């Protein structure tokens, strides 16, 4: 069968089309939603990150290149701001506000993460922005959304994860609730936000008008796990945390000789028992009663012990490879190092090298998770240094003079 990608390079030599080539975005977001405009920038949108003079606070989040704090070496910031250009601007200063309004007139989208009411205090709320540019789309991402009794409560990923219900169901009964690794609520909110922007663009085609989109971190978390509320509303079950025994025991983690394996012990049961039997390790699992799934769940501890005795005689790789040949949905619990070495990701060129001329090296970034049949990826640009594109945008695009630039800089507006 013909491979629709056979002629395509993962990364273009330059000058090619992109999915979102005519989309312009101003990004005022901190760590809560910088990933949102990154997603769109990676698809070709023209994104300008607006940082306050001195740099965005998310530059303080590690890890740092060289392992010591430097606002221009935050890998967190770099990852979340690829393919954007960057300017500094104090929108709280009246002159900064004026410049911002001029930029707003030339953009399609503004992304912001200020506390609700902050922009209104600066007279830069949606109504005013919309007057300056009736086609403007404003995406606001905050802890609890723009309305409701908690809208002003301070939030962060940890708080969103707790309030959104994610923590209560992760971890084991003997541990505290567990927050998923990384700033996951910011990612889910950013994904929802990007969908919102693309929907609003389509709506704008029909109505000629922009719109405001309101995303809550708490709701984004709650919308990212499938079964918890369904089970509660329809079966009155409060899902508990069960360590590595997931949901209805459909998956669990067992130790092997050299690591851990995720198994699905209830799929293709007979095939599994035959396999164990062929190695003389099935013990009493051949007995008819074990064919009943309900019996297996009731006698789970016993089953778990037998399986464990068996998996401990194998390496993770053996069970993964043979298991996959037999179509068991098993997998090793990979560490980040093993992820970097994964042959599948390598073959698909998932990781891409991005030049960092400021430190005379290139760094490997996770690329986008999709391949397109008629468009290659544009060559990636690293995130901007603080105010790196001030000159190009203020002078090149807004036409400010050298004097004006100096004055704004001395007033700490840019």
């Amino acid at each position, binding site marked *: 069968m013909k491979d629709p990608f056979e002629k395509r390079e993962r990364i273009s030599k330059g000058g090619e089309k992109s999915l979102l080539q005519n989309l312009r975005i101003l990004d005022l977001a901190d760590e809560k939603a910088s990933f949102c405009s990154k997603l769109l920038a990676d698809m070709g949108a023209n994104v300008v990150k607006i940082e306050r003079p001195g740099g965005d606070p998310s530059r303080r989040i590690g890890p740092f290149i060289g392992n010591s704090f430097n606002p221009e070496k935050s890998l967190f910031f770099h990852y979340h701001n690829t393919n954007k250009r960057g300017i500094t601007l104090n929108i709280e200063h009246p002159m900064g506000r004026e410049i911002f309004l001029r930029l707003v007139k030339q953009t399609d989208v503004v992304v912001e993460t200020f506390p609700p009411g902050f922009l209104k205090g600066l007279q830069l709320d949606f109504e005013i922005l919309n007057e300056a540019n009736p086609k403007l789309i404003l995406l606001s991402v905050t802890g609890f959304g723009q309305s409701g009794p908690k809208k002003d409560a301070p939030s962060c990923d940890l708080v969103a994860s707790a309030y959104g219900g994610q923590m209560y169901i992760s971890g084991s009964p003997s541990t505290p609730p567990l927050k998923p690794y990384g700033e996951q609520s910011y990612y889910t909110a950013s994904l929802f936000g990007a969908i919102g922007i693309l929907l609003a663009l389509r709506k704008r085609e029909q109505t000629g008008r922009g719109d405001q989109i309101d995303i809550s971190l708490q709701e984004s978390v709650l919308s990212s796990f499938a079964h918890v*509320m369904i089970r509660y509303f329809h079966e009155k079950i409060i899902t508990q945390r069960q360590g590595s025994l997931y949901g209805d025991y459909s998956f669990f983690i067992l130790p092997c000789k050299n690591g851990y394996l995720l198994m699905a012990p209830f799929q293709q049961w007979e095939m599994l028992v035959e396999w164990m039997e062929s190695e003389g390790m099935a013990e009493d699992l051949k007995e008819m009663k074990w064919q009943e799934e309900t019996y297996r769940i009731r006698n789970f501890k016993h089953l778990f012990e037998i399986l464990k005795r068996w998996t401990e005689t194998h390496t993770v790789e053996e069970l993964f490879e043979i298991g996959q040949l037999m179509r068991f949905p098993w997998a090793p619990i990979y560490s980040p190092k093993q992820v970097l070495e994964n042959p599948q990701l390598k073959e698909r060129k998932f990781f891409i090298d991005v030049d960092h001329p400021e430190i005379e090296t290139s760094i490997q970034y996770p690329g986008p998770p999709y391949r397109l049949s008629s468009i290659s990826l544009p060559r990636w640009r690293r995130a901007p240094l603080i105010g790196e594109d001030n000159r190009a945008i203020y002078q090149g695009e807004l036409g400010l003079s050298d004097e004006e630039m100096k004055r704004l800089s001395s007033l700490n507006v840019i």
Partner: protein
Amino acid sequence: MVGQILDGVRILDFTWMLAGPYTTRILADFGAEVIKIQSEKTAKGAESNLSAYFNAWNRNKRSITLNLSHPEAREIVLKLVSISDIVIENFSPRVMSNWGLNYEALSKVRPDLIMVSISAMGQTGPWKDFVAFGQTIQALSGMTFLSSFTKDSPSGLGYAYADVISGLYGAIAVLAGLQYRDQTGEGQYIDLSELEALCTLLGPTLMDLSVHHQEILPKGNRSDDLMAAPYGCYRCLGEDRWCVIAVFNEDQWENFCQVMGNPDWTQEERFSTIAKRKDHSEELDAFIGQWTIQRRAEEVVFLLQGNGIPSGIVQDARDLAKDPQLIERGYFLSLRHPVLGEMISDAQPIRFKNHSTAHWKAAPLLGQDNRYVFRELLGLSEEEWSFYIERGVIQ
């Protein structure tokens, strides 16, 4: 009634389980006409039209039945594709090809077609045929390893996060594809890998490792990367009740000490800066835990939020169902299902200023839209229609 955003966009939906249906649910919620292709053979378990899960992921969609393994089903699919904008599927990579329904074939009848394939590993590469569910992807991405208290007690997330994340990426792919088609007239085939999707959510960590080559180990709720201390989850009064507290600067720390009544330990040198508190987080957390355990989570959080300190209750399903914030924002809503009755569902977290769910419908019954789709949309004659039913193509 105002028109919906995706009015006039028709989607042929071959998806099942969670990742694909999550994509098409978002698009259906905003007005796309999503035609879900089912069959008597596959409408079982989580894909049974009468399960609560099915109802949650397939609201606002239409359902038709088509036996795709029947040789004559192909020509009907091609006719449907010719009047659709988008095709979405999340089978193993060879399935659509085996039916003669890959992008090459489908784009012949609809040249500007946008097709999205969501699969575990992607359509190419040595692992493309591997079998995987959300939990499998999480294990392979590093997420399970990292979301644990220690490396010798891997636990991971208690739910199929990878499926939802892939579903969200799927919706972005469809909408970006539409944007491109509107501007250029060209269609697109989009190959989306669930494993890659999840790896994008561990970006800084994977970059850290490739730059520094230092092993990165799980640390439970702690974070080396954030300048915050205290930062963690603390036990409160009551059975399995917990709160979280995050202190990002010295003002918040002073407020926090004040709320606790400035106990002597807060004045100790080892807790005097964020960096020092991070270095002594174990002792710090023990002190804070002694304060929280005497109070209800609601009380702790009320006190802290009132003083500008990020904090929260670790909510379980019952807390969520009665959370005043969610209720006031209309996060839960009820849709009437013809067989299951009133079903409570979650709203879209994507809110526009003038958001309306007035047109929303519960999930379809198996094949409930057969007549509308085959007779009205495709224009099959009564004879053709009965012919296909007799042959078991339409079930």
